[in-house]
């Protein structure tokens, strides 16, 4: 078949595609990723889980061009991150684990502008985009605050605003809540949920409970992509969970142990209601 614009045809309609991607760190005996293939369609929310050392962070670095695959191909909005990393980073932004490491500037607004400064955006537009991004994460009024005076959740939201200002279509989140307390986690997850309508989201996490509403969940273990499933199927697959060192979150685990459907009952409210309904019907029957 004649294929004049390979990038447009094969990668153009996809947000991300990986085909047979393998990567080994120099001097390491086993590959960090072997023969990994998957696709992200625009607007999808896809979660990534798996044991430490499974290849999750390596995959993130391949997507934004920090690493180059040994074989296979990666395309982000039709482009190769290894050869066009700067172009790719306009389309795909990465939010890393620890917000402390990422914030560099004296004031919140400078920090949010940092990523844009490298893109040659005109000054006026830059100001607009920064203001919009700060509002989008609910930090309006924080422009002149010093990042060091913010809580962990607020810092991570500043980092998220820095990504949004670049206006990428794809957001890659590498354990964005692991350093946050319950309130901070709720904040960050709430803003991600709000962004869901307009962005493609690739969310790496150890907290399965954060992915219960995702479109799909990928599992990376020992460098292999071992599963690509909906949350419903995933939660009911005890073998898959165990083999990949995953533990069901407390609420669905309680549901399962009580013989109730785990995927539907993943909030305390839903589970409590189901339990009470069952007691109620049991009382009536008896």
């Amino acid at each position: 078949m004649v294929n004049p614009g390979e990038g447009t045809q094969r990668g153009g309609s996809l947000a991300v595609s990986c085909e047979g991607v393998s990567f080994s760190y120099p001097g390491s005996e086993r590959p960090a990723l072997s023969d990994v293939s998957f696709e992200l369609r625009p607007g999808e929310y896809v979660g990534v889980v798996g044991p430490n050392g499974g290849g999750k962070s390596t995959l993130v670095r391949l997507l934004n061009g920090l690493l180059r695959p040994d074989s296979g191909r990666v395309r982000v909005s039709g482009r190769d991150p290894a050869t066009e990393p700067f172009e790719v980073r306009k389309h795909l932004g990465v939010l890393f684990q620890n917000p402390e490491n990422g914030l560099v500037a004296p004031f919140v607004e400078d920090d949010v502008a940092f990523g844009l400064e490298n893109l040659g955006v005109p000054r006026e537009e830059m100001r607009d985009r920064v203001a919009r991004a700060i509002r989008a994460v609910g930090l309006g009024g924080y422009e002149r605050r010093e990042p060091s005076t913010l809580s962990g959740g607020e810092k991570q939201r500043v980092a998220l605003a820095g990504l949004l200002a670049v206006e990428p279509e794809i957001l890659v989140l590498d354990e964005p809540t692991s350093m946050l307390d319950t309130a901070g986690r709720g904040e960050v997850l709430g803003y991600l949920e709000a962004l869901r309508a307009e962005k493609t989201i690739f969310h790496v996490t150890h907290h399965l409970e954060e992915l219960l509403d995702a479109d799909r969940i990928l599992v990376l273990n020992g460098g292999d992509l071992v599963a690509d499933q909906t949350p419903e199927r995933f939660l009911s697959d005890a073998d898959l969970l165990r083999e990949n060192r995953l533990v069901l979150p407390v609420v669905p685990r309680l549901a399962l142990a009580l013989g109730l459907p785990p995927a539907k009952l993943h909030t305390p409210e839903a589970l409590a209601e189901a339990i009470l309904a069952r007691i109620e019907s049991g009382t009536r029957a008896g």
Partner: protein
Amino acid sequence: MRLELKGVRYVYAAGTPFEVEALRGVSLVVEPREVLGIVGSTGSGKSTLVQHMNLLLTPTSGSVLVDGVDARSLQKSELRRRVGLVFQFPEAALFAPTVEEDVAFAPRQLGLDEEEVQERVTESLRVLGAGEFARRSPFALSGGEKRRAAIAGVLAMRPEVLVLDEPTAGLDPATREDLLALILDLREAGISVVLVSHDLDEVAEVADRVCVLHEGMLHAVGTPAEVFYKEPVQAPATVRVVSLVKESRPEIGDPVRFEETLDALRTLQGI
């Protein structure tokens, strides 16, 4: 060992315009052979508090007592051997060419003979399930393996109190469960464990007592049931479920740990 903090205040950058009072008079006891959970939102003073437990930070006012004796009168090296502190992301401090060399570093500083050092290294690595990567470079390990190697280094000092600051952050769920099991094993072995965590579910599983810090002050302290049922909104998932069930079924009681909760819910359902 009984470790007591009495009216500990701590001010960062005292006397400068950046002065911050991180702890405002905290009194707290770590009893022998207990797991004490310390929770509280980011910036509430948790890390500052635990750094007082081996006088890495000296209180601006107040005192730290070890079995009733002012810790300032003890040798610092002695205190730091008896109270082992594992920082957040301790793997950042791994430096030696192999894991076993790294773990051997601290006990060697104690002036132990080489045989004793090796025995402790082997023991610590075994307890952490880290024996298999003893001879590998710490830099070739995964995040979970590095974390275990770093904790083994502190355990090799054979501390009486082990303080873990967010030990499970960034670990996969199964490694997290292994670490929680280890905490219970250490308590069985007679070690007190102070667990700082923002994961209330894990604190619920292992803590004998919980203390909640809020803006540098002790907000609550007690058994997990006492503390979490008082404010069930900021509670582990088990307590949140039970609190809702309890509104119409008060007989369910105050279960906190997963198995306890499951039993209580089963009893209630008559199964």
